[in-house]
């Protein structure tokens, strides 16, 4: 006869309520693990999806995610000329926050190197990749921009032509994919008055320089568009993504490009480490520590519950001792109840979590590994937390049954 099952059956209402309580607690532990995993996955998602062998960024920076990186757009042509490089793509990346009707629309803008990269690699749930070099965008579904919507950003209007799924920045913002030219236009969008003031300032500065005094005709250029000025470069991009003919050549190609004095080269793994060790590390540690704290709290609460359940049965335990039940019978009663309670709580945590986690604003990723790890933790805390109850059961005297 299984005394643990019998006791649970008799007090099924109390058991269910207790299991639900423990389940909710374990769901929070599970959720924290999922958030932790989500932060790591989100942080490295772009690096994995872009699938570049090398990242060429501004010299001595750890860009473009961990810090700002600016490299000239022409760098992609230089990189393409290096033997072993198959594709060199411009990479433009920044975050903007605009108003879309009544709501705040915060998005990470990622520039695709048109026409090399039209976004064919982006996982679309609806629509299509970019079909033209300007004024189209692919929005992640978390941005809640419907297909075909015309959205005004800066001075231009862009049409949503595709909806992606699960494309999130390391900060948790949905990504909008534009051509790199559009991404730069969004990034460098300057109001008309600011442009006029800059032109006036440019002319004013020119008058003070020798070159302006000696060649006054040059000052006429000061009032022209920036892009038309030979001395002013095209707007800078964030990085250049290099895809190699043979990925095994990464080290050799990185040495060649790394020899240029204006850039630094990272492999995809190095770029991933920069993110995890840099911008994500503190969040990761914070969530990890909080998870440990929650696990300790869950252990203490489970211990209290199991101790209370044992106290409720103390008279029966004394009686069982009196009629000769061995310690293993009593140990089995308490341990089995602890394990059943832990397992039930774990199952409730999983089932309820599956319903609730998808509704969280940031991704909560529960992997099989994490589930197995949590199951092992629940197993251990079930055993550990029943320690108090077991101790109480072991020390109770059969005399208590006579009281």
């Amino acid at each position, binding site marked *: 006869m299984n005394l643990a099952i019998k006791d649970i*059956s*008799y007090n099924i209402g109390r058991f269910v309520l207790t299991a639900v309580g423990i389940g909710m607690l374990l769901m929070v532990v599970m959720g924290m693990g999922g958030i932790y995993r989500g932060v790591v996955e989100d942080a490295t998602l772009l690096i994995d999806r872009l699938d570049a062998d090398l990242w060429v960024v501004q010299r001595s920076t750890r860009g473009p995610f961990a810090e700002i990186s600016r490299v000239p757009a022409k760098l992609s042509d230089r990189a393409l000329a290096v033997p072993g490089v198959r594709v060199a793509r411009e990479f433009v990346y920044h975050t903007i926050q605009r108003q879309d009707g009544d709501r705040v629309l915060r998005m990470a803008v990622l520039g695709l190197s048109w026409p090399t990269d039209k976004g064919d690699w982006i996982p679309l749930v609806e629509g299509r990749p970019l079909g033209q070099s300007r004024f189209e965008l692919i929005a992640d579904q978390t941005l809640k921009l419907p297909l075909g919507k015309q959205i005004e950003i800066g001075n231009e209007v862009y049409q949503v032509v595709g909806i992606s799924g699960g494309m999130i920045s390391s900060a948790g913002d949905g990504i909008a994919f534009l051509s790199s030219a559009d991404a730069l236009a969004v990034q460098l969008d300057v109001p008309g008055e600011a442009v006029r003031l800059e032109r006036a300032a440019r002319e004013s500065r020119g008058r003070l320089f020798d070159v302006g005094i000696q060649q006054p005709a040059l000052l006429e250029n000061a009032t022209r568009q920036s892009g038309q000025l030979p001395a002013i470069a095209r707007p800078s991009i964030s990085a250049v993504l290099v895809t190699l003919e043979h990925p095994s050549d990464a080290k050799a190609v990185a040495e060649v490009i790394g020899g240029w004095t204006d850039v630094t080269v990272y492999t995809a793994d190095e770029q991933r480490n920069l993110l995890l060790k840099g911008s994500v590390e503190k969040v990761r540690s914070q969530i990890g520590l909080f998870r440990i704290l929650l696990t300790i709290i869950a252990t203490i609460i489970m211990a209290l519950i199991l101790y209370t359940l044992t106290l409720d049965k103390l008279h029966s335990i004394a009686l069982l001792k009196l009629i000769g039940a*061995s310690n293993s019978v009593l140990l089995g009663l308490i341990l089995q109840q602890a394990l059943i309670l832990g397992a039930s709580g774990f199952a409730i945590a999983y089932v309820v979590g599956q319903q609730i986690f998808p509704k969280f604003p940031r991704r909560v990723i529960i992997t099989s590994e994490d589930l197995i790890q949590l199951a092992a933790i629940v197993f251990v805390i079930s055993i550990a937390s029943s320690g108090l109850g077991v101790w109480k059961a072991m020390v109770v005297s059969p005399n208590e049954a006579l009281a």
Partner: protein
Amino acid sequence: MSTPLPADDPSAKIAIKAESLTKIYGAGNTEVVAMRDASMTVMAGEVVALLGPSGSGKSTFLTAVGLINPPTSGKIYIANQLIMDGPKALTNLRSFRRKHLGFVFQKSNLIPFLKAGENVQIACELNGLSSRQARIRALELLDYLGIKDRSQSYPSMLSGGQQQRVAVARALANRPSVILADEPTAALDSFRGRQVMELFTKVAHEQGTSVIVVTHDHRSLDVFDTLYEMEDGKLTQKAKEPLAVAH
């Protein structure tokens, strides 16, 4: 290791023998002598009543011979074996209790989360019967005590008398040498109290089990074979007839 009674001892059918049991609680100024030099011999199949006012040491004696509360000095023999020599146990007491002793209490003391049949079955299982054998034995015992039809009821659904019958059935589960009952009729009316006392007599006489009953209930003393009285920790045997006649 327990020691048998001497081979030439004529008391081969002695179920339980207590020799000069003394129990002292505390020490020095707080010392209380709860039981003093108490001796009792109970034969197999004998039904013994232990009378006395509250605080006289009856329960101390019962828990001592029940191997729950060891005496300070004295010897206890059960089933022809020396089990306690003073406070020293000569065998595994819990295991010995399981095999040789049965208990019935003032309140039925059934396990609340087990049904009536299961309360008896668990005692059988603890004595090594398989689950199936234990279930059969439990039903046999409940049938013997006239309460088989309530085997699927939880204790909370039984009357006080029914609960005590289940408790007696549980006490019989291990075919004990001795049943120790501590005021088993205290929570029952006189009719049901007498029924329980008669049940003990039936069990003792039909199954050869000795029964020691601590009781305040003088209305049923006629069912007992022997009467003892405890007063201020001293145990004395009483003549049965005068007490029985008095009630």
